């Protein structure tokens, strides 16, 4: 099959866009893994909870400000409103994550790891049906945000027909990646979290409340998952099973990047996103299998993942 340069570019951009979404999910998962030593199987459900919540929040905010007004100012207001909606959604997920950690997980840190898996799996099942209870069986969607943002010309300026919303996701993704690294490298809280990851006992000894760090990290993970859900939902629809695929792909990302490594999660997410997207044009049946094949390959060459463990550098 002949692939034109334009098509290749579009697929690459799609891959990068998906990679950023994937990074937001995987980064929360990997930080939780690195610090709490818990594999949060309910993380995909937090992502889809974010998507469902976002549809409501988008509707609410668009109801207030109305459809985008004409001119640069009107468009800018609309984009800012969408960003605000995404942040509100993610903020709604914060208490959910906090409750998960403080009420459920905290009780069983000293038990066998398998119980933590059972617990997060139980939470996965419960969240699944909570969503079914609130939003029903069928998928729900919102087209307003996607179509409104797509009216802004971006890629058309360079002669490429590419949805502006995807460009928007890539830009927001870049900013949030930079923000996350800034948070872990430069802020005091970020450094405390990293210190806890490197040596929990030492961190306790110098006066860090690890309880607090644990809750914070889990809440942060939920925040990022909700953020990703809100960013991912406008072009598609929110469905009950939408959490599964990103969850499993995040596992692949984590293994590729190295357990608990933020930098690894970033590289892994873009790699998985782009390769998966290329496979869609090159060899469609390989789309699902390709990420796992890369993972197996990297494991053979570098068993500890591309970037090893996290802590010393973000």
């Amino acid at each position: 099959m002949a692939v034109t340069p334009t098509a290749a570019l579009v697929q690459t951009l799609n891959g990068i866009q998906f990679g950023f979404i994937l990074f937001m999910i995987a980064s929360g998962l990997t930080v939780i893994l690195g610090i709490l030593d818990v594999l949060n199987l309910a993380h995909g459900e937090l992502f889809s909870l974010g998507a469902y919540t976002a549809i409501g929040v988008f509707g609410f905010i668009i109801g207030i400000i109305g459809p985008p007004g004409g001119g640069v100012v009107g468009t800018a207001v609309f984009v800012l409103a969408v960003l605000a909606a995404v942040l509100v959604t993610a903020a709604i997920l914060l208490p959910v994550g906090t409750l998960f950690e403080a009420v459920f997980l905290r009780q069983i840190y000293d038990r066998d790891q398998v119980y933590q898996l059972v617990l997060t799996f139980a939470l996965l099942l419960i969240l699944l049906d909570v969503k079914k209870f609130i939003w029903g069986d069928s998928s729900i969607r919102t087209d307003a945000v996607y179509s409104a943002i797509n009216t802004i010309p971006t890629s058309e300026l360079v002669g490429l027909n590419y949805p502006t919303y995807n460009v928007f996701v890539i830009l927001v993704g870049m900013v949030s990646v930079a923000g996350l690294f800034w948070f872990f490298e430069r802020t005091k809280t970020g450094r405390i979290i990293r210190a806890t990851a490197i040596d929990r006992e030492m961190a306790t000894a110098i006066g860090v409340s690890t309880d607090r760090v644990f809750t914070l990290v889990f809440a942060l993970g939920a925040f990022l998952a909700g953020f990703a859900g809100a960013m991912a939902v406008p072009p598609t629809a929110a469905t009950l099973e939408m959490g599964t695929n990103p969850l499993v792909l995040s596992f692949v990302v984590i293994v590729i990047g190295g357990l608990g490594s933020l930098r690894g999660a970033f590289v892994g997410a873009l790699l998985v996103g782009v390769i998966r997207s290329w496979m869609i044009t090159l060899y469609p049946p390989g789309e699902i299998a390709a990420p796992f094949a890369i993972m197996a390959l990297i494991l053979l060459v570098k068993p500890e993942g591309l970037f090893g463990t996290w802590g010393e550098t973000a």
Partner: protein
Amino acid sequence: MPERVDRDGTPAYRFLGVEVTRRETVFLVLGVVFLFVIPDIAGLSDSLQLSVIHQGLLFGFAAVGLNLLLRHTKLTSFGHAAFFGTGAYATAVLARYAGIQSVGLLLLGAIAAATVMAAIIGVLSLRHTGLYFALLTLAFGQLLYAIALGQSALGGSDGLPIRPGPANQPLLFGTAFSPDVYQVLTYYLTVVVILIGLFVMYRITQSPFRNALDAIGQERTRARFIGLPIRRYVWAAFVISGIYGGVAGGLYAVVRQYVRPEGTLFFLRSGDILFMAILGGFRTLVGPLIGGVVLIFLQDVGQDITQYYEFLTGVVLLILVYGFPRGIVGSLRSGGIVNARLSDLRREPSVLSTWGRSAVQSIERKVTEALTSLRIILFGVD
């Protein structure tokens, strides 16, 4: 002939290497008889379906295999559906493309395929322990799921039927039976396979091999220092547990006469298998089997009474994690939590109100704790 031996002061009998006290003999015989009369019991009521119990036994059997890893080497495999699915798909492929009709040959094919698969996945994933191992097994399971989904030769998401040759179903003893008879006969075949499998597992858990696995599970470095070939032992255990999954999957395919990726290879099935082991009690031999029947039965009943049956399963798992971490069998056996509570109750019935109070108190305490953490997160420590 059974031979009398003495075990910690209680008389016991030893037969074929199985050592049982009189009490255990009663349970053993009752259990076997119960397994054999299930088709009769299932005929009595509509809510009890043989196929549901049968499926529970099959998944439970896979969980028995997984339990070898979980109980002794402390490795949590989150991809056991890979072997279940490999067995099932090997059966389907053999029936469809090689035209093999005999159930025995199909099962042998399933075992061979699962062994090879377990050997490969084992080599790749056993370099790691803990969560990394769980992640890797899960990812390999999903890889197989993706392959089954993507290959049209394997039927894609529609799956494959098992209808070899001119016969509409695989042949037992070289004969085709009517569907009803076939269902009951395959059930008895399953029971026989399960009994053999449990016996083999029992012998494994009485062997030095099990002690070596225990040592590896408790302290790897020390086990290496005393000269245990860790890699090879763990790998062997992994392959054995994979074979159990493969046998269960092969039987599943023969019984259902249809395999779908969703029902055999999907990672939620891996989760199910793991949780059956925990639910039944992963420190026991038969626990996973019972956990399998209970979980599948629960899901089936749940599906009938409410559309929110996942919620129901989730709540059961929560109760399990906080209230009965030893699982059903572990809690019921002597010294387990249920017996202790029952004897408390018999001695002093007023203990009930104490339990109620302590339950309320602990819930209150947890809510306060949660609120405190929330306050601390939001406003910091003052």
